[in-house]
């Protein structure tokens, strides 16, 4: 059983956050709320999304696992106007998802969750650098790096956080000291390199005004955590690094 009403804007930005990595995903609903865990087809990037029950206008669910075609779902939710409420209901007879937006009714066929790419088990990572900063700062660093290269570094060094990229001709570097970010803790210096192909699409889903907590290690995945719509949903990204060739 699953029946819920949710603000269209929150639903849209939640889908966008997951759509960065996948076109279809498994959506888990239970009494706590709605959650998604998905990894991109190359096993390089992973997203976890949590929308707690009290972020919905109304929410009722038993444990269910829904296989969702995100591209289609995104198109449907795109029909909503700002401020609309989207009603979702799993039809127990047909196993389809009934979507209602201001008089518009859409019945969406779900996909077999078994057929969806299974995410790997990722061990707990001990990432020594933790920095909290505005989404706008990260997006700016990614955008600038994209002008010179196809990969970039995140790092902590001497109590400051940096983003840098080295191209064939040009270089980019953004340094943010302890005082210029919201907070910074670093047990040791750290630096890892990442594909901009992934970061650029992640950047589109990171709200400029969100506080992003970024965890970085040395040649380790980077984790970025932030909230959507002032805390109504939690998003966490994990991205595998590139190892620098000597």
């Amino acid at each position: 059983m699953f029946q819920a009403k949710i603000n269209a804007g929150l639903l849209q930005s939640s889908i966008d956050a997951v759509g960065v990595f996948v076109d279809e995903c498994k959506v888990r609903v239970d009494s706590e709320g709605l959650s998604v865990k998905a990894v991109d087809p190359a096993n390089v990037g992973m997203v976890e999304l949590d929308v707690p029950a009290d972020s919905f206008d109304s929410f009722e669910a038993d444990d269910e696992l829904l296989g969702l075609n995100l591209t289609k779902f995104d198109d449907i939710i795109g029909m909503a106007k700002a401020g609309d409420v989207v009603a979702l209901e799993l039809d127990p007879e047909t196993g389809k998802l009934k979507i209602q937006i201001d008089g518009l009714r859409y019945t969406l066929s779900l996909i077999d969750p078994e057929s969806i790419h299974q995410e790997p088990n990722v061990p707990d990572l001990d990432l020594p650098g933790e920095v909290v900063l505005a989404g706008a700062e990260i997006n700016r660093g990614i955008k600038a790096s994209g002008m010179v290269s196809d990969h970039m570094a995140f790092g902590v060094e001497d109590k400051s956080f940096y983003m840098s990229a080295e191209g064939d001709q040009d270089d980019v570097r953004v340094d943010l000291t302890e005082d210029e970010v919201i907070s910074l803790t670093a047990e040791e210096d750290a630096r890892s390199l990442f594909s901009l192909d992934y970061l650029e699409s992640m950047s589109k889903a990171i709200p400029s005004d969100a506080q992003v907590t970024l965890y970085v290690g040395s040649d380790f995945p980077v984790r970025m955590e932030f909230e959507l719509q002032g805390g109504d949903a939690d998003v966490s990204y994990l991205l595998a690094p590139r190892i620098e060739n000597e």
Partner: protein
Amino acid sequence: MEFTEFARRVERVEELKGDHEKTAEVADLLSAAEDDVDVVARFVQGRVFPGWSQHKLDVGPALLYEAISLASGASEQEIEEVVRETGDPGDAAAKLEFGSQQTLGGGADTVDEVYRAFERLADESGEGSQRAKVRVVADLLMDADDASARYVARLVLGEMRVGVGEGTVRDAVAEAYDVDVEAVERALMLTNDCGRVAETARVEGEKGLRALDIEVGRPVKPMLAQQADVEDLFDDLGDEAAVEWKYDGARVQVHVDGTGEVSLYSRRMEELTESLPDVVEQIESEVEDDVVLDGEVVATEDGEPMPFQELLRRLRRKYDVRETQEEVSVEVQLFDVLYRGEALLDETLEHRRRVLEEAGGDLISPSWRESSMDGVRRVERESLDAGHEGIMAKSLDSTYSPGRRGRNWLKLKPEPETLDVAVVGGEWGEGRRTDLIGSYHLAVRGDGDLLKVGNVATGFTDEDLDRLTETFEDLVVQGDGMEVEFEPKVVFEVGYEEIQTSPEYDSGFALRFPRFLGVRRDKDVKDVDSLGKLERLYR
């Protein structure tokens, strides 16, 4: 079986020169694969899915290079550079360093896991699927060693280039499981599924193989006819022959299952059901359930047959089928039956024809039994008068051999022949045509490779060039300025004035005044005309 072990063994197969050595090595590979033999028997030939399957990877060199770039960190220019150096995308992948991009886990280690990844790749379609396809392929390459990278890249493009074809796998299955090679051959012909044949041989032996049979819903290759002169007809076929009209259409295999559901397949076993709704309707109203029939679809206008090109226009337009249906109407002419509640392949044509007349309703193509040259000439005249291509003559006591081109079926066409050739390269145009590939390099089938016979640059409409450029852009293996090399995937039908000898091309022949007649979408590069045919026509 681990994919790295598969790659290591295939590398050995590639290095071996002699057929016997290759077969023995493949037999060894199959035995070692144990219950992964179904996948391995296909992979070793560069096939991912069974022959009858409608699954396709639909990945060209451009997408592969993008995946290699993502997995290796090398830029696409660097990759194209290495492809030029090595001359092969697989060798290029083997030469590049992987392992810089890390993953969060997962990945594919066994041949079965690689196969599952290919299934995901084939399932990706529509908006955004390119990105997902690139990433699935990248995932296969990320942890790959040299040999694995080489064969993943080649599998993705559908060509293993290790000198192993269906014949080698047939012999290797016989050797590995100690079964009769004829039984393997028969099973392959009937199932089009070398994986299933190998697995059956492994588990159930020869008895299991002999129990395999044609099934409704799984297309088999159609039986083919040999070109012949009318004069020699009775030498090949005996005192009496079945003589039929030869249509300028496209071959179609009709499957009707026990519930009356109709599926149509091309000679390449691609499903055509959606493209030919009017044919489906004709079959539904005329034909019995639970049969497999062989026939030809023919385009007509006001009851007159239209050239093959018109029909292709219909088959190509998957999306506006109903609209084209108004312009070109299509009918089916049935001339053989392969299955009616039971397999009929081993029955004689005479018997099958009787069954067809009971099962095929009003859609049966006429057939005459003729024992004199006068009779044959009469049928030929009638066929040509009705606007058809010529005649077929068939041996009355011959069985149906899928995929075989023998002397039991003869095609007799009065017109000069056209050639079906592979397109292996092209040149960007000049002036008004700078954005278009305006000239195409053509090749025929030599002994294992493709040999050039010239270029075609005439016969195209502007619309043809737009469409062809779009198609071929995805098939560019490497491009050096104006000249580009294509992955050979597309078959052109070309006309010409005559065939000349020429030192300029590696076939030793050149076509005089070649002109483009159309794309043979129903044909595979494996089916293009051979150097032997060129030699025959030259004489």
